[in-house]
């Protein structure tokens, strides 16, 4: 028996990393929000590695924070190790990476959801999406509860028709021994949405006491306190180390001998897996000449003895897993606690979505996270917050928030998905961003806080602090440009001592700071009157001054990019009617329905000539329409 159980502005299906951000954003924007999870114990669960951040992913986490999301703070509060990666490679690619305590991450996030005003968290399996005409109406749970809402966000991760595969064993299931969601996939298909099949996997977890760490290399965290979130002060927590070891020739032999039992090679797995996350057997086959592969052991948390075996993802049978693990130095006696598995699942090919993450065919239905063909907690959360924001704005009748490629990795991620689609689980990378030097992790707040503020996710207090920071940066840069120092001996000595050349005439501090070998602290020895500035302000000044030339170059590129980005393609345009388009362009434009000329120009197979023709056609139609109006 179905019964009407409640009415909401926004319903979020799934409480993983995308679902949590979506639900929090909508509720914090003042919408009555319901978030449904299959299992209360798995809110914000990390089914794969216990880590957050890294290149591009860490950038996403900071952008989520700047928009008022939770992932950064939740990671900061539950981390067991932090490292800044790529410190030798330039500011744009510095990347913070944290090892998270899985249990604590879940516990804290669940609590945040529970305490959030306007937000209800319930355990239920959603069976069906309710639609009225082209508009979303609500959902129905397995127990017959009907919830009506103005907007729905689907964030079901890998649960849609999930299938677990371990060697020749295969059964229907979600990650980590949970139930899959079968009827929801059918319901989506009934709505006219098409589904694709992807595959991913996770390595085994082993017991800490079965590991001989003396044969491994310790990987400690940085001794410097870091924080993802721009709010609050970093503090150094007690850190747990990771461990590095390598596969051996013997490991590879075991794998080769058992390849015939791998479901990947026997064809049992149909879904497409990600290239950046290959199974160990895949690595051994594809890079046959590599004598060994890295294996990292990562603690899953403070209160557990389970360790995650990074680099050892596999779908070989359980007995082979044990055998090959034990050939690795330090793991001769390893005891597996959780078996590695591959999981196949249905996803929603993302070209069916708008840049707002709303489906093109059903008004008010949004989707975010792994269901959209991505992989990674950060990618999921980034889409989650955007979908949550836009579901809330839709419920209020407002225009969606779109982050452009030039504004953030969130923009790069979503634009890539929606415009290009993806034929493997998509992972964000810094090399996917055109304007990498602008999209740094250190300036995510400067890029996006203003937007977060506008949509109502940044508190007065937080915004005040942000404005203060921005003012300090500008004021100090102005001051540095005004203070000129003379070519006196004391100054020359400092310069030469830092491996720099002497100055020949009066020079501003700003000019001197542009020299790669001179930092802000050196300036303090050359002149008086320095204000006492917080570290993050000094960092911004150094980066902005030192990379000014490159930053300006990229800003010019952005300027050009935005001109065609602002040119909107009206929804009534029928691409199949446009004479002169190449047939490939016509077909792809018709399928993807780009919202702007800029987006259209990024579709592979659409040439500059096609864009010219599109522009001429749009103008032609516009004039015909306005002439028609005049004749009436």
């Amino acid at each position, binding site marked *: 028996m179905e019964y009407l159980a409640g009415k909401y502005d926004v319903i979020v299906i799934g409480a993983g990393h995308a679902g949590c951000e979506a639900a929090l954003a909508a509720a914090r924007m003042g919408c009555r929000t319901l978030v449904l999870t299959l299992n209360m114990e798995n809110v914000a669960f990390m089914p794969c590695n216990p880590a957050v951040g890294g*290149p591009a992913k860490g950038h996403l986490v900071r952008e989520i924070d700047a928009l008022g999301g939770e992932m950064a703070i939740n990671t900061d509060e539950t981390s067991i190790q932090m490292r800044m990666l790529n410190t030798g490679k330039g500011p744009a690619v510095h990347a913070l990476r944290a090892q998270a305590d899985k249990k604590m991450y879940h516990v804290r996030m669940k609590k945040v959801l529970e305490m959030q005003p306007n937000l209800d968290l319930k355990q239920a399996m959603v069976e069906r999406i309710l639609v009225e005409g082209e508009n979303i109406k609500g959902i129905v749970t397995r127990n017959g509860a009907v919830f009506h809402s103005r907007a729905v966000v689907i964030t079901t991760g890998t649960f849609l028709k999930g299938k677990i595969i371990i060697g020749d064993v295969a059964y229907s299931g979600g990650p980590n021994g949970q139930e899959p969601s079968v009827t929801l996939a059918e319901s989506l298909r009934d709505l006219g949405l098409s589904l694709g099949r992807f595959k991913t996997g996770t390595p085994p977890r082993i017991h800490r006491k079965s590991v001989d760490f003396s044969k491994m290399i310790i990987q400690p965290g940085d001794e410097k306190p870091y924080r993802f979130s721009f709010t609050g002060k970093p503090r150094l927590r007690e850190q747990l180390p990771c461990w590095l070891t390598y596969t051996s020739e013997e490991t590879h032999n075991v794998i080769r001998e058992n390849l015939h039992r791998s479901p990947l090679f026997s064809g049992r797995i149909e879904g497409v897996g990600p290239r950046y996350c290959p199974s160990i057997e895949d690595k051994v086959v594809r890079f046959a000449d590599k004598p060994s592969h890295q294996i990292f052991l990562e603690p899953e948390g403070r209160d557990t003895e389970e360790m995650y075996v990074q680099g050892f993802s596999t779908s070989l049978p359980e007995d082979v897993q044990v055998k090959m693990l034990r050939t690795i130095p330090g793991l001769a006696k390893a005891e597996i606690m959780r078996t590695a598995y591959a999981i196949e699942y249905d996803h929603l090919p993302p070209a069916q979505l708008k840049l707002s993450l709303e489906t093109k065919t059903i008004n008010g239905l949004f989707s975010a996270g792994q269901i959209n063909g991505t992989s990674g907690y950060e990618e999921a959360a980034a889409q989650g917050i955007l979908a949550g924001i836009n579901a809330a704005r839709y419920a209020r009748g407002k225009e969606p928030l779109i982050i452009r490629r030039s504004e953030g990795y969130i923009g790069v991620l979503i634009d890539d998905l929606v415009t290009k689609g993806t034929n493997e689980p998509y992972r964000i*990378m810094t090399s996917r961003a055109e304007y990498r030097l602008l999209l740094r992790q250190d300036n995510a707040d400067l890029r996006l806080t203003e937007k977060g503020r506008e949509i109502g996710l940044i508190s007065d207090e937080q915004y005040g602090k942000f404005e203060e920071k921005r003012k300090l940066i500008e004021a100090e840069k102005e001051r540095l440009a005004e203070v000129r120092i003379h070519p006196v001996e004391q100054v020359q000595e400092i310069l030469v001592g830092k491996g720099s050349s002497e100055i020949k005439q009066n020079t501003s501090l700003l000019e001197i700071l542009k020299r790669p070998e001179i930092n802000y602290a050196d300036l303090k020895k050359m002149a008086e009157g320095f204000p006492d500035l917080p570290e993050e302000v000094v960092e911004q000044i150094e980066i902005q001054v030192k990379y000014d030339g490159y930053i300006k170059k990229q800003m010019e590129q952005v300027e050009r990019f935005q001109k065609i980005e602002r040119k909107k393609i009206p929804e009534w345009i029928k691409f199949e009617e446009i004479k002169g388009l190449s047939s490939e362009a016509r077909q792809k434009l018709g399928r993807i329905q780009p919202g702007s*000329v800029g987006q259209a120009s990024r579709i592979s197979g659409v040439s500059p000539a096609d864009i010219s023709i599109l522009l001429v056609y749009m103008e032609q139609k516009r004039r*015909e329409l306005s002439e028609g109006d005049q004749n009436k």
Partner: protein
Amino acid sequence: MINDTIAAISTPIGAAGIGIIRVSGSAAVSIVERVFRSSRERKIEDAGTYRLLHGFIVDKSGDVVDEVLVSVMRGPHSFTAEDVVEINCHGGLIAVRRTLAAVLEAGARPAEAGEFSKRAFLNGRIDLAQAESIIDLITAKTEKSLNVAVNQLEGILSQEIRKMRAQLMELLAHIEAGIDFPEHDIEEISLAMIEERSKEILHNIKKLINTSETGKIFREGLKTVIAGKPNVGKSSLLNALLKENRAIVTDIPGTTRDVIEEIVNIRGIPLKLVDTAGIRETEDLVEKIGVEKTKEMFADADLIFLMIDASSGIGQEDKEIFPLARGKKTLVLINKIDIKKETTYKEIEKYTGRHDIIEMSLLTGQGLEKLEKRIEDIAYAGLVSKQDELMVSNIRHKHTLERTACSMEGVISALEEKLPTDCMAIDLKAAWESLGEITGETVSEDLVDQIFSRFCIGK
């Protein structure tokens, strides 16, 4: 792409000595300002709309290219509704081309076919009926550029460019894999190696720019010397070429007054016949100016026509002149084959065997077309394909190569200044992308694909 500034010769190519370069876009005024010296020290910026300014176009090295009239039409009251500057050149075809080259160098982009009209339409200046023809133009242009791309697949140029792109991609893949997967044991590429490879690539690009002879030919004309003994038919050849093709007589400023150059446009290729005055007046080059001077003129020439009389055979003068042309692109023209004597002709064939030979009769007109065809082949010499739009497409290539060189210089200076890898990656990527514009390969998932196929990455 929509609002950048474009330039093109807007009068028919090869027509009379006057030509107009049209520049349109938000930077039109500032770009032309960079190459224009007003005779009254006025700035285009300060001139009112629809005003004419008199002055000179100067190139990068400060040389005067031409005396011109410049008119400014400010948007929206112009043909394209953008700021438009038109340069009226007076110095003939070469001056027009060099002026265009100067404007492009100053920052304009070569306009696509129909692009001025397209802008005019998009900005509401021309009426709806013309929209169709603009679309047709763009489509035609695409087909043509497709042909160009196909032709170039076999060309030396694209082979070279593919090779450089592959090298750039390899560098990028190494750098980017290291950045995106810092904890994987990826063989890192040393900075010294990046520097070495970058310098090599830059060197090759510069070589390409310098050897893009076709560009030079269009800018400066193909310097051609006609040599041969008296009465062999030099002036007949000249007259024949002049008659068939429109000639532009130019008094090039800055050169000696008594040297007059005839410029003939042969199948779109300007042929600069050097010291034709001498040829015309005395009919005897060697006698008038001597062996030393001939040597000098040959040394300066891009192309030499050695004319031999099929009826009288090889003479002493021929034997003196022939060795002087060694190492130069030379066409041996055997004239008067209508009255050839078999025995002398055999001797000629034997003697000139190592050269490109064209048999002709200026009396009957036989062989003239073959000569023109051959001139065309030489001008295009495998560097570019034979398309109407070649001149533009070539300037575009050169433009793109220069941009690439600029990016590579950025890479090298970033290395020298010890800037971090992500800075130099910006220029490396830009270089890779601009080279791709020449071969028509667009940015795609290439880089990401490379990273995954090259390195073993994953958790």
